[in-house]
């Protein structure tokens, strides 16, 4: 089988760099073009120094891209939708890591992103590229959307409970995300200046966080329509470069035993190559933690039950640049082409790190 020719747009950014790293080692693709407006002509390793001696590729200018088999878009939100026609003309398949094609409804988009969508007609063709929920649709898809990094963690953590119909919809869902600095991308600014950002525990979106919309859409769908409760999603930036942990408080509609939860989660994830249930009675790592996931494509999911309150605390962890972005996109790619889903994604993470 000849290799698919792949292009990356936005290759000088963080999700772009991660995709380059993954695709250079992917046996079924050949990475032929990496575009960057600001770094055109420079070696890839001048921006992503880990790739020195790994690739001699140079960035091309986005305007110089030529046709190929698949294009990955790693652009700020808004930039993909604005030029989606041009990108679709370059290749029959497009995977867009931005938020532009995550929501199926133009109204929902406008409400959360504060502007009309620039290619609303494509929204219902685009597949929300989370293989654990949309594996089958991905096989047919020509336009695939990446997933929000915090949303991915929250959705994977909560999906089993919603699917099982256990959630008490009369009580709000609270999700608190802790997130590292790479989630904000590669552009420096006052708040990312090291002396200011180091050691921060910074509430950057106490209300109205856009990732809520993805939760509402995806968990709603699993619940047969709409998620009926308020979703209270807040995010805190902490001292960390890569990684996300979400902690969610879910009230259930009947008394349970933890064994029931074990069954629900096991059923959901036992066969999943990249979701692990983490819930240990001993040791240092009893619940999901992003620390050991750096560079890996796992989403670790755990839970604890409070019998008195009929409450489940759900925790889910991932590397925002991997299962939260580039790794998940490669997994989706594997689904689209019918390849073994773990291809190119076997790095297990490190301990200690």
């Amino acid at each position: 089988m000849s290799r698919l020719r792949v292009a990356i747009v936005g290759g000088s950014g963080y999700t772009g760099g991660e995709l380059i790293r993954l695709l250079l080692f992917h046996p079924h693709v050949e990475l032929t073009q990496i575009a960057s407006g600001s770094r055109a002509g420079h070696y890839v390793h001048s921006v992503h120094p880990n790739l020195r001696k790994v690739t001699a590729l140079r960035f091309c200018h986005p305007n110089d891209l030529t046709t190929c088999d698949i294009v990955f878009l790693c652009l700020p939100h808004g930039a993909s939708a604005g030029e989606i026609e041009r990108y679709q003309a370059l290749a029959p398949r497009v995977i867009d890591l931005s938020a532009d094609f995550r929501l199926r409804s133009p109204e929902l988009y406008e409400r959360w992103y504060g502007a009309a969508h620039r290619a609303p007609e494509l929204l219902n063709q685009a597949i929300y590229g989370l293989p654990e929920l949309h594996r089958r649709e991905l096989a047919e898809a020509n336009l695939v959307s990446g997933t929000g990094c915090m949303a991915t963690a929250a959705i994977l953590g909560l999906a089993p409970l919603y699917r099982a119909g256990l959630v008490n919809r009369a009580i709000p869902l609270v999700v608190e995300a802790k997130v590292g600095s790479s989630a904000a991308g590669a552009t420096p600014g006052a708040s990312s200046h090291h002396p200011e950002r180091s050691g921060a525990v910074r509430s950057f979106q106490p209300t109205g966080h856009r990732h809520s919309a993805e939760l509402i859409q995806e968990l709603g769908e699993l619940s047969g329509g709409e998620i009926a409760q308020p979703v209270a999603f807040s995010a805190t930036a902490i001292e960390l470069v890569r990684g996300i942990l979400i902690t969610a408080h879910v009230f259930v509609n009947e008394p349970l035993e933890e064994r029931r939860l074990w069954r629900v989660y096991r059923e959901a994830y036992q066969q999943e190559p990249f979701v692990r249930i983490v819930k240990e009675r001993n040791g240092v790592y009893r619940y999901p933690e992003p620390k050991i996931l750096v560079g890996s494509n796992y989403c670790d999911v755990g839970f604890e039950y409070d019998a008195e309150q009929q409450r489940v605390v759900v925790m889910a962890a991932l590397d925002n640049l991997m299962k939260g972005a580039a790794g998940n996109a490669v997994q989706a790619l594997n689904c689209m082409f019918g390849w073994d889903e773990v291809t190119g994604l076997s790095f297990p993470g490190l301990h200690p790190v």
Partner: protein
Amino acid sequence: MNMAHCPECEAEVALQGLMVGEVLFCPDCNAELEVLNTEQPEVGLAPQVEEDWGE
């Protein structure tokens, strides 16, 4: 006392020495304010682009 109230947070804002149209900041919520009236002390929110705050 030449005091107005911040429309955002109601903090007291001193206007002495300022003229209508001048800009100042709220000591409590750091909103950018414009002096609207100095006789009957009044300030309004200055037009502001919402900074993108990252992440």
